[in-house]
């Protein structure tokens, strides 16, 4: 999927690094952030296709990222990742029109598959 741009927000540095390492060979451009505010600033500068965010973070959390992104850029896909998976957080995420919801430990293959599907235009049917 060449050229698609992805933002990863997670206060665990390794998460962003690993997603970047796994996806860049397939042509994605991945930028990683440890918290939401600089990511918001980056989103204002340039158009991105996917935002992958951790749910539980200091400062603005994943729900806030979801709300902010979906309000300002409805076309941007948002994928939520959490180590703290609970039914409540999943339901809340669904209500906020999340495009994907993953529990940690994150399966990178599944994440890539999800993103690929999200970015493929629906087959005319």
């Amino acid at each position, binding site marked *: 999927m060449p050229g698609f741009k992805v933002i990863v927000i997670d206060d665990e540095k390794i998460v962003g690094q*690993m*997603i970047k*390492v*796994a996806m860049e060979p397939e042509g994605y451009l991945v930028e990683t952030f440890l918290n939401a505010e600089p990511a918001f600033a980056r989103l204002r500068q340039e158009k991105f296709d996917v935002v992958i965010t951790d749910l539980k973070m200091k400062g603005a959390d994943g729900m806030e990222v979801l709300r902010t992104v979906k309000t300002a850029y409805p076309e941007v896909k948002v994928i939520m990742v959490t*180590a703290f998976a609970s039914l409540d957080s999943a339901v809340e995420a669904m209500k906020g029109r999340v495009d994907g919801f993953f529990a*940690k430990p994150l*399966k990178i293959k599944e994440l890539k598959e999800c993103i690929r599907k999200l970015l493929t235009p629906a087959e005319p049917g």
Partner: protein
Amino acid sequence: MKHVKIFHKIIALNIANILLILVTGFLAYHSLEQVLTKLRFMEIADSLNATFLEMRLAEKNYFLYAEKSALSDIEAKTEATIKTIESSRADIARAIGEGKTTRLESNLKNYGRSLEGARTGEGGAQSKVRAAGRKIMEFMNYITSSERAEVNRIIADSKRGLIFSLALILFTAVGVTLLLSARVLGSLKRVEKAAHLISEGEFEKIEPEKSRDECGMAVSALLSMAAELRNREEEMIEAKKLSSIGILIAGVSHEIGNPLNNISMLAQNFVELYDRMNRDEHVEYVKKIEEETERIQRIVKDLLDFARPQKPDFKQSDINSVIDKSMRLVQNMISICNIEARVELATELPKVYIDENQVQGVLINLLTNAIHACSPGDRLRIGTRLNPDGARVEVEVEDTGKGISPEILPHIFDPFFTTKGPGGTGLGLFVSYGIIKNHKGNIRVKSEAGAGTCFTIELPVCDL
């Protein structure tokens, strides 16, 4: 008296006082009435005396100068006097008594009769009239002087009576007030003591209340409240334990979940990208995995320290020397961070009964937190002092660092609560809190964002 309600006591004593006042008033009124009666009589007696004097003058005129008209004059006067006495007989009898009144009357009648004798020219009439006249005068003089003495006596008596009863009223009023206030204050003291013991949580030390008056009832109510509080406290401690286990489990899953996720992702990419990576990159991945396992190891170790605390080795210790030891261990950190540190230890502090290693751990934890909160040039102070009540030694660790914001202040003793990012396990203050509580001490915090933080540890003075 012990089981009579204070309210009833007050009513009873007030009624007694009112009765006393009424009796005093009645006695004073009675004395006044008596004096008035006597005075009324004195008035009558004065006019009688004047009449008698005139009678005796006329008597003299009749016998010495043989004035015929004088006799009828005397008779008319005697008549008039008898009438006067009759008309105010009640007043006179009340003042001098029935006997004396009758005697006065008979004296007058006797005089009248002797006058009649004089008119008919009876022999020796003159001396009879004179004798009867004298008798009346003497009797009147006797009565007036005795009545005067009587009035003086009544006034003196009522004066004494008034002074005595006023003194009695004053004494009972003051005595009753003192007695009641002593009892009420005594009971309030007991209530205060009980309330104090409740606030200290020392429910067992509250003495049961025997008295059943209002204060006794207040103490009993307080005691049942204390019992209820004790039950609630136990329930609350249970609930707190459960909730902190809940927080602990949630914390553990999150804290361990993150490095586990990191290991998992590193491993996935390691396999997936193995062929594209060179040897150095392989080593780097495995090193990262190793680091993440160490992170888990650290959390597990702290957790074990918390879950399986070593049996504390309590002994009498000098808190100041523990502080000195702790300060030596953090001195290097303080110099590197360019913090100005001050140690203010009170001299002649009583010993405390502590596990030195554990308390030192707490102090180092607090000092490290303070150092981390400070920027170069900030000040750090550690001090000791004896509580005003002399039962506890206080250790203060104070810094002028960045402070703790009010919204996170209530959570700083929660497990896994940390502001230090992945470097902190969030167990330091949680474990410290447990240690100090285990020492029957107390740890509290005061902080203002931007101005600094002050932790205060209270440790009970060794009473062995």
